[in-house]
């Protein structure tokens, strides 16, 4: 009983200090909302209006018609007509255009010849997204020789299940939940403990009857609630501004989030036992955050990554959480159907908590 009352004393103190720290308090609301707005509105993988130059060497009726059709796709925005392919190369190199279209003199004949490409498409391959656009253009009625892929056109119909309009926010926001919670949960816990060490509070606390476990759990408890509040905030903003569907059960989502928050808090505790200053704690948080964004399947498709990167990604809690949120929110999957991800989060939490408890001793040496 004494143990519980000590734990609650720590929690009460933490909440009291938190309520006086306006900046941190603002971050609890600010980070999710601002990130949602930024990512939701700014990130758009459905690219349009690429700056394009055209060298129409054929200048026939058919070639002009082709250019008009090209315009209609809205993928390209023709900003210039040039004389020679050399000029297109130059414009590309200088970064003035992203796509160059070269229509050869014998365009009309090439169109009817199945063995020869009718049009050359030059693409700025330094931007991977733009390079992918070339594939969209291949579906045009004439055949292209892109520098990227073979030009075999196919007639496969793609049906984007779960996101028929292909709106980016629908894909982004379930993943963004994971990234936001990773950032705030890990940072808040790590900093909360390191700050006390920096200010000398910890030296006082470890000389009292408070045990390590009471101290750690007591400090972490308020942040679980904060995590849940952030989650609610993300869901409300996602629904009202971006119409992100919630096809599965909200309870399932909260249960999954509970497991994920626990994993991040445990990781934050591990960081707090290693970092000596708040600055170090921050650096270590970003050390974890970066792969959480890049290797988790949030930005790039997980299956497309090299095996090694996939193994790294599997070790991050956010990878499993993103699978859970996308499953529950977009595909109406039940929590139990996604149990491997839950197990992964549980194992991670267990390992991290053990590590933190071993490292956090009530000693200074």
């Amino acid at each position, binding site marked *: 009983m004494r143990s519980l009352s*000590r734990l609650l004393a720590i929690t009460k103190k933490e909440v009291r200090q938190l309520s006086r720290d306006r900046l941190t308090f603002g971050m609890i609301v600010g980070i999710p909302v601002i990130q949602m707005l930024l990512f939701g509105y700014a990130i758009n993988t459905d690219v349009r209006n690429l700056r394009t130059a055209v060298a129409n060497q054929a200048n026939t009726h058919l070639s002009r018609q082709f250019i008009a059709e090209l315009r209609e796709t809205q993928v390209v925005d023709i900003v210039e007509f040039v004389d020679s392919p050399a000029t297109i190369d130059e414009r590309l190199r200088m970064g003035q255009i992203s796509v160059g279209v070269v229509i050869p003199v014998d365009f009309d004949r090439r169109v009817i010849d199945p063995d020869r490409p009718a049009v050359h498409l030059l693409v700025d391959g330094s931007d991977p997204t733009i390079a992918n656009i070339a594939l969209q253009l291949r579906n045009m009625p004439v055949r292209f020789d892109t520098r990227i892929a073979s030009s075999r056109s196919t007639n496969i119909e793609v049906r984007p299940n779960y996101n028929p309009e292909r709106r980016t926010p629908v894909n982004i926001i379930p993943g963004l939940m994971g990234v936001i919670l990773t950032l705030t949960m890990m940072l808040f816990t790590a900093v909360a403990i390191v700050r006390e060490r920096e200010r000398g*509070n910890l030296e006082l606390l470890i*000389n009292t*009857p408070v045990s390590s476990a009471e101290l750690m759990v007591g400090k972490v408890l308020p942040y679980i609630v904060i995590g849940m509040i952030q989650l609610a905030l993300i869901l409300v903003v996602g629904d009202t501004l971006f119409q992100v569907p919630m096809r599965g059960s909200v309870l399932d989502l909260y249960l999954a989030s509970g497991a994920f928050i626990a994993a991040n808090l445990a990781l934050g505790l591990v960081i707090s036992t290693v970092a000596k200053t708040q600055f170090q704690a921050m650096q270590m948080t970003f050390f974890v955050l970066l792969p959480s964004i890049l290797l988790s399947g949030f930005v790039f498709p997980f299956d497309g990554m090299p095996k090694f990167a996939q193994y790294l990604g599997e070790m991050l809690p956010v990878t499993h959480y993103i699978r859970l949120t996308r499953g529950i929110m977009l595909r109406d999957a039940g929590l139990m159907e996604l149990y491997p991800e839950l197990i992964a989060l549980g194992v991670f939490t267990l390992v991290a908590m053990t590590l933190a408890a071993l490292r956090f001793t009530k000693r200074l040496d």
Partner: protein
Amino acid sequence: MNSDYAIESRGLSKHFGTLKAVSELDLKVPRGQIYGFLGPNGSGKSTTIRMLCGLLTPTEGSATVLGTGVPGDSRLLKPKIGYMTQKFSLFADMTVFENLQFIAEIYSYDRAARADRINELLGKYDLTEQRKQLAGTMSGGQKQRLALACAVLHRPELLLLDEPTSAVDPQSRRDFWANLFRLAEAGTTILVSTHYMDEAERCHRLAILDRGIKVADGTPQELQASTGMHIVEVTAGDPYHAQEALDCAEHIASVTQLGVRLRVLIPDQFAEPVALVQRHLGKHGVTADVRLTPASLEDVFVAVTMSPEERAV
């Protein structure tokens, strides 16, 4: 079990790498007394206190603190000791009352008596007016009184105070010591580290530490009586020249200037110290008033921290 000593240590040592912060320290701190640790910065005072309350593990040796072994299960010890850190370690963003309340909760202080105890402490340590003030906005003296109030809230048998007065003004220091005497009278054993001589003089007993080694211990009177030095006070119109005349002179172990006066330490195997000093001054044509005085604690400190070469002059 119920020994006369609150703390007994045997050969207590702490090494950080090659640095010997504390070497083979033997201590006996009687119950109900104020025991001082006197020494310059880096002499091992804080390290010793941290070992005694279980914050640091001794490299060698052991101690018994209130019947509990060190190193050992320090959990048994925590409720019985109060610890005041060198740096203010309470919560700056909580009020005085909230800090005391938090400490009371942490020590599971009897719930019914909690409010009374906090009010009693606020009154005793002159903090009633600051009760709703954030601890971080208080003066050095007020912070220190709050720290002491928090350290004694759970009525510990032993108080460990690590340089408690290093950041406060002289008046606050006097008041602080008055509080310590009250606590000692009520039966609390107090171990306090300091580098102020006047504070050391107030202790019932003290140990002088120098580079991790205990160089002397006893009551202030015992220490003053056993310096092994004659203390000669020289009052000169031109103390600078007088110091020059004596600095490297034969048989003189140390010269310290205090305003217009010089304190000269001469090992007591040499007789006629006054005549000796006058002879040296005469050689340089300096006239001064020279007389023998009893040793102050500062003289003791200078004498015991002297290297053997300095001693054998």
